């Protein structure tokens, strides 16, 4: 007679599966704990899903007491019956989330007290949920057993979740922005900035420690010690990490920490890694000086001469002017036609000062004697727009003086080796934008200097090879501008 083989009930199978998983997970935690090393990117990728999946069991576990409480009333008794479905779901999802969490911790370079507590909290939570489920369904012991276990489980999930929050957001993430009355009630200090831990009378406490707290604490601090390295206390700084010493007293070049923070941000080994603000040049300099001076915790704060201050230095930068083509065309529009015509008539002589400007630069020196007074007269309609006028070695004479004077916006005027005389220079009295006037090789005399003195923006007057002697007596202001 055959005995029908019955499959074990679903509950038993689930229970055994949960037990086995809990044991396996515990084994993983013991044998492969998070040790501060980073591993394969694929493992880190999978591990990151812990942050998503973990919220599901949290919601389930917190829902159970709500349903139990609400289901006391006969009208809502159906709520209680659904709890029996929630517990196995919770157990399975806790196991899944815990496994992903182990993956994240093991491959993401986590280490330290927080992550260990959080992980064991998660595994214990799986066991606690199984216990609750069993107490509710199977064991008919004291009636108070299940509620107590439920309470403990809710406490456990809250504590584990809090640890998880601390891992993500920082140890004081709940109290950081707490209103002051509430802080006082709980008994926390009313300041939100962390107090300096070391004596600021020493160089370490005053200059070095703040650098590490600002830039390094989040990954090499009390909560997380990537690479098994802590940088927030002097002892742990000098102890080093999994790769050995990071500071070699007296040897700045041989100190790995200094090497890493001095690398260019795009380098793989650069610290802080991509995404975090790198150390400023003066901060690196401070570290270097301190290490070279022996890396002592008791070195007085002002002992090192020439140490830069902790403020970030101002880095001079240039801004490239933006060119808006529409605006440029618009500003050139009034005289555009004439400019085109005159450019054709005098190729290579007239052009815009720059691509973004409506002002013109005039340079007739290449044409030499072929360019004369009449040619300059043809450019009269444009004189207001001319900012640079180079008429060196051309055939212009004093007849062009009014045309030159009409260039009200001219900054640079060059009349090198032309036939002009003092008469021309005296008409330039109204040129209040003129910065540079070149009269080299002309027949001007000291008589023209009076006019020149009145030019407000003039910086250089080139008077070499003229009738003005180098030792001519002039005011001090003009003396600094004369170049012979």
């Amino acid at each position: 007679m055959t005995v029908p083989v019955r499959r074990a009930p679903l509950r038993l199978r689930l229970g055994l599966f949960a037990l086995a998983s809990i044991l396996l997970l515990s084994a993983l935690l013991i044998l492969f704990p998070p040790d501060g090393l980073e591993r394969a990117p694929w493992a880190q990728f999978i591990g990151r899903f812990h942050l998503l999946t973990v919220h599901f069991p949290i919601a389930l576990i917190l829902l159970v007491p709500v349903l139990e409480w609400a289901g006391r009333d006969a009208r809502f008794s159906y709520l209680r019956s659904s709890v029996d479905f929630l517990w196995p779901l919770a157990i399975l999802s806790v196991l899944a989330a815990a496994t992903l969490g182990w993956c994240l911790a093991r491959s993401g370079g986590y280490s330290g007290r927080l992550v260990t507590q959080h992980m064991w909290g998660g595994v214990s939570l799986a066991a606690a949920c199984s216990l609750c489920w069993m107490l509710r369904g199977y064991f008919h012991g004291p009636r108070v057993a299940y509620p107590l276990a439920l309470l403990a489980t809710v406490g456990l999930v809250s504590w584990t979740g809090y640890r998880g929050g601390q891992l993500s957001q920082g140890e004081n993430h709940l109290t950081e922005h707490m209103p002051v009355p509430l802080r006082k009630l709980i008994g926390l200090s009313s300041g939100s900035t962390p107090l300096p831990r070391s004596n600021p009378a020493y160089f370490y406490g005053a200059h070095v420690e703040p650098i590490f707290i600002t830039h390094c604490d989040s990954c090499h601090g009390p909560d997380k010690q990537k690479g098994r390295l802590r940088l927030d206390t002097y002892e742990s700084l000098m102890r080093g990490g999994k790769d050995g010493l990071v500071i070699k007293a007296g040897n700045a070049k041989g100190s790995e920490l200094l090497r890493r923070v001095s690398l260019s941000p795009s380098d793989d080994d650069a610290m802080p890694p991509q995404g975090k603000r790198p150390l400023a040049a003066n901060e690196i300099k401070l570290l270097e000086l301190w290490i070279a001076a022996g890396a002592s915790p008791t070195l007085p704060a002002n002992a090192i001469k020439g140490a830069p201050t902790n403020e970030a230095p101002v880095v001079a930068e240039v801004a490239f002017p933006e060119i808006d083509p529409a605006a440029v065309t618009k500003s050139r529009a009034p005289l555009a036609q004439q400019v085109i015509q005159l450019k054709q008539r005098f190729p290579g002589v007239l052009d815009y000062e720059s691509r973004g400007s409506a002002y013109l630069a005039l340079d007739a020196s290449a044409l030499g004697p072929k360019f004369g007074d009449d040619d300059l007269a043809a450019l009269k309609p444009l004189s207001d727009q001319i900012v640079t006028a180079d008429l060196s070695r051309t055939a212009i004479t004093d007849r062009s003086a009014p045309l030159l004077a009409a260039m009200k916006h001219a900054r640079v005027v060059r009349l090198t080796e032309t036939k002009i005389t003092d008469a021309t220079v005296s008409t330039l009295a109204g040129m209040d934008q003129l910065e540079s006037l070149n009269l080299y090789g002309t027949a001007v005399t000291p008589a023209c200097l009076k006019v020149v003195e009145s030019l407000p923006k003039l910086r250089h007057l080139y008077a070499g090879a003229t009738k003005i002697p180098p030792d001519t007596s002039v005011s001090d202001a003009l003396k600094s501008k004369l170049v012979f």
Partner: protein
Amino acid sequence: MADSANGATRQSSAMPAGTSHREERFALLQAQTRRHFLRSFTAGVGSMFLGTLGSPFVSTVRAAERGVDGSPRLEFTRDPSQPLSVLPPQFAARAKRIIYLHMAGAPSQLELFDYKPDLTRLDGQQCPASFLVGKRFAFISGVPKLLGAQYPFHQAGKSGQWISDRLPHLEKHIDDLCLIKSMRTDQFNHAPAQLLVQTGNARLGYPSMGSWVIYGLGTENQNLPGFIVLVSGGNQPDGGKQLWGSGFLPSVYQGVQCRSHGEPVLYLENPSDVSRPLRRRMLDAVDEINRQTYAEFGNPETVTRIAQYEMAFRMQMDATDAMDIHKEPAAVLAAYGANPAESSFANNCVVARRLAERGVRFIQLYHWGWDDHGTSAKDSLNIGFADRCRETDQPIAALLTDLKERGMLEDTLVVWGGEFGRTSMRENRNGQVMQFIGRDHNPGAFTIWMAGGGIKPGMSYGETDAMGYEIVKDPVEVRDLHATMLYALGFDHHKLNYSFQGLEQKLTSVKPARVVAEVLA
């Protein structure tokens, strides 16, 4: 589908109005590089084929109006018959032309500008191990000895800058110079280092600074080349003619090496039985053949070639006049120390000033012989180096004086420098004590100076350590120097670019470069 073909066509430059269909086709074919092919491999092959047919599916050749960062691209297209015509700079320029004085071989900054009394105090002592760890040297082996400055230093000028006694003439201009003592390079041998300084890349095939400048700005005097190079010192620099080559830019932008003694360009003059009118008729015939070639193939380089012949014809008159230093008064020649009968750096400086007056955009002078390893008298710090200083000091000072006097220094950027620095240790080739004194190559720190248009005079930028070996403050990479020079000429160095091999190539190459704002006036 049309888009990927447009991706290929967009890279080519805009055509001036009135270009023929053949020219468009030629440009389109040139613009389709391997990069484009691979990028649009899956969907684009078919559309590229359609593009070459000039089918109505593909729009005509059109320039990319926006650069990579979304801002408007600058166009450098010109009429092919006037490839060197003037274009305005991007924004108001401080300098219109550059005179670059390259001291080939790497002059020793520790004997010229970088005053290191601590090094002199430790002269003769063993070099500390930390200087040698992780470094490659050209010739130093084992543990060399530290070498102090071989010449005394003193402070000069109102700015009180330190300078050695080797440059008595340049000293008078110390208040016009901006010294950059923290230049840095990553090449430790001459040819790649010179290529890096001159072309922005340590490998051959890239356009030189002067090529970029005349590509971007053109030149004012169409009767002379826009980029002229003069070489002295007895040898060509190690980097060779590529140092003034045009790389992938059209060949019209290459530097023209002229001689400062005798004919400026060999074979520029007509042979004795060829008169100028005869030469003109010959050129007309060649022009006609070239025009027929152009009508058939549409290669704009042909038109440029015609323009080059025409320029050579005009140069016959103007170049000889520009390079003829006999025309200068004796007083000027004496100020430079120039002797028209022989070629020398001093002669080249006179020519440089004359060329600057005549509207040449980029003038480059090379002086060879600064590589003072100490292997012989000629390249030792106590003999050869002193000779080089004597050969260059007076002419450079006279050049600066001349430019300043004529009011040209305010719009000319003068740059002096080598390709890397020299070590604080005495060279000990094969571990032996050498008969003459020299230093090995040090790419970690060298000194250059700039003067003129847009540069703040009378200052020093950057610092090396107490031994003068490494930079401790404000390092300046070679590409930062290039960016600064282009800024003085009125360009954002990102915008002065040229499409080649699917990339917007520029002088400062691909690594980020910074304009050194602290040295700008």
